[in-house]
């Protein structure tokens, strides 16, 4: 069983197999289930992700009314063709937003690695689908690759906002997506690890400060930027750029930062954006004045 990214990359490169394949083989070994069963379960996850993106792009609204409809706005803007950044990156952003808008509306999603960060991996996957035209099998492999890197983060640091802040959720998701994008685009396992390191480095320190405790503000837009970050990090790694700090040490740093982070900034809705005048006013409006009395 691989314990860190260095071992994961070494397992893939020594056998000249994909990271996705290392993850599949480990899953077979640990659970005793067949490749077909494991593949079928991941395909089900892919279907849920696809349905969530479609639902979000058609337009949803959360119960609180704080989020919804931004994925639709962005798709309309892309169609006008006057965007500044790029079509694929904005497509990834809108599909990440779509997923998290569905999540906020208590729709059905696939946690990747968590619900609050569920948009980043599918957002990037369904955007590059339009560019790289992967087979269904390659799309499922993308999720195993993302899962392999998330597995390392979960076991060596954290994927919980309450334990490690948003860096542990959207940060982990951005790293996972960046690595999987590299592998789908034909990069090496080492390049996938560099992409993860670059993406995660740029999410370090990100706090979890949801307004009114709802997984809406700023979570939906953090997924947007997580997707954009992953796309850029993947391109940087594919260009041959390396992270000066190895991926495993970035993960270790993320863990330590999470430990040092005050409780008010770890999913308690007491600090950061949740504690701004507007954040508090929104909370009061949604739950009544007593809702934030503890803060």
């Amino acid at each position, binding site marked *: 069983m691989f314990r860190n990214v260095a071992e994961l990359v070494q397992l893939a490169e020594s056998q000249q197999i994909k990271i996705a394949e290392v993850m599949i083989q480990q899953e077979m070994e640990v659970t005793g289930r067949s490749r077909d069963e494991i593949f079928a379960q991941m395909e089900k996850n892919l279907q849920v992700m696809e349905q969530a993106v479609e639902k979000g792009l058609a337009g949803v609204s959360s119960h609180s009314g704080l989020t919804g409809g931004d994925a639709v706005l962005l798709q309309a803007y892309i169609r006008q063709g006057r965007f500044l950044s790029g079509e694929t990156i904005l497509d990834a952003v809108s599909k990440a937003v779509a997923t998290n808008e569905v999540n906020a509306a208590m729709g059905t999603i696939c946690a990747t690695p968590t619900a609050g960060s569920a948009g980043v991996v599918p957002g990037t996957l369904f955007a590059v689908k339009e560019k790289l035209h992967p087979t269904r099998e390659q799309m499922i492999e993308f999720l195993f690759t993302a899962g392999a890197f998330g*597995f390392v983060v979960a076991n060596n640091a954290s994927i919980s906002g309450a334990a490690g802040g948003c860096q542990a959720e959207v940060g982990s998701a951005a790293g996972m997506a960046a690595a999987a994008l590299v592998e789908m685009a034909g990069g090496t396992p080492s390049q996938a690890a560099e992409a993860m390191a670059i993406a995660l480095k740029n999410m370090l320190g990100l706090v979890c400060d949801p307004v009114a405790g709802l*997984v809406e503000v700023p979570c939906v837009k953090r997924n947007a930027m997580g997707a954009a970050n992953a796309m850029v990090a993947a391109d940087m790694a594919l260009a041959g750029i390396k992270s000066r700090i190895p991926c495993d040490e970035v993960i270790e740093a993320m863990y330590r930062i999470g430990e040092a982070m005050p409780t008010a900034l770890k999913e308690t809705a007491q600090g950061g954006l949740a504690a701004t005048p507007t954040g508090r006013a929104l909370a009061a409006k949604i739950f009544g004045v007593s809702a934030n009395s503890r803060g």
Partner: protein
Amino acid sequence: MKYKSVFDIIGPIMIGPSSSHTAGAARIGRVARSLFGRKPKWAHISLYGSFAQTYKGHGTDVAIVGGLLDFDTFDERIPFSMEIAKQEGIDVMFYEEDAVPNHPNTARIRIGDEKGELELVGISIGGGKIEITELNGFELRLSGHHPALLIVHNDRYGTIASVANVLAKYAINIGHMEVSRKEKGKEALMTIEVDQAIDQSIIDELTALPHIIQVTKIVD
């Protein structure tokens, strides 16, 4: 290693908005329901830490009640579980606790009816994964790293051996096991961590053994 499977990372399929505060909470509620073995008449739910601060926003309350109604994480009835509980005659009370828990996402659930009560403490550790740390006053020292069985049984000779025999028959290895009881000859609890996945058919076979009251799988 806390996380063993890729599906702990990519998954679960769930109703939003939070894997720890919604899906994990539903799973804690569902373990309580499963251990109780029937629909409770009442539920007293205490929330601690981040659960206490943000449960309204995350739907932690509706998720736990959904779990008590035996809904899985992806059950589309979860958003309506409060109304459904009311219709089914379950009296639900929530308490926001100030005490600082060991884990930020902690819930203590007491459920019961005229025939009995059950109390457990569950924590949601991220990505929808949960651990049960206390059951009916018994502290559980489960690592949470392996599939585990909680078996409520009558304190009679041969019961432990019969359970171990069934597991041996299916080549399931026991990694850690504890037996506790409150009084000689009364109800007892076996806590068994195993190395392999446990199918429903094995649970059914264990449940059918003499002196077994309830068998619950607590980690997938």
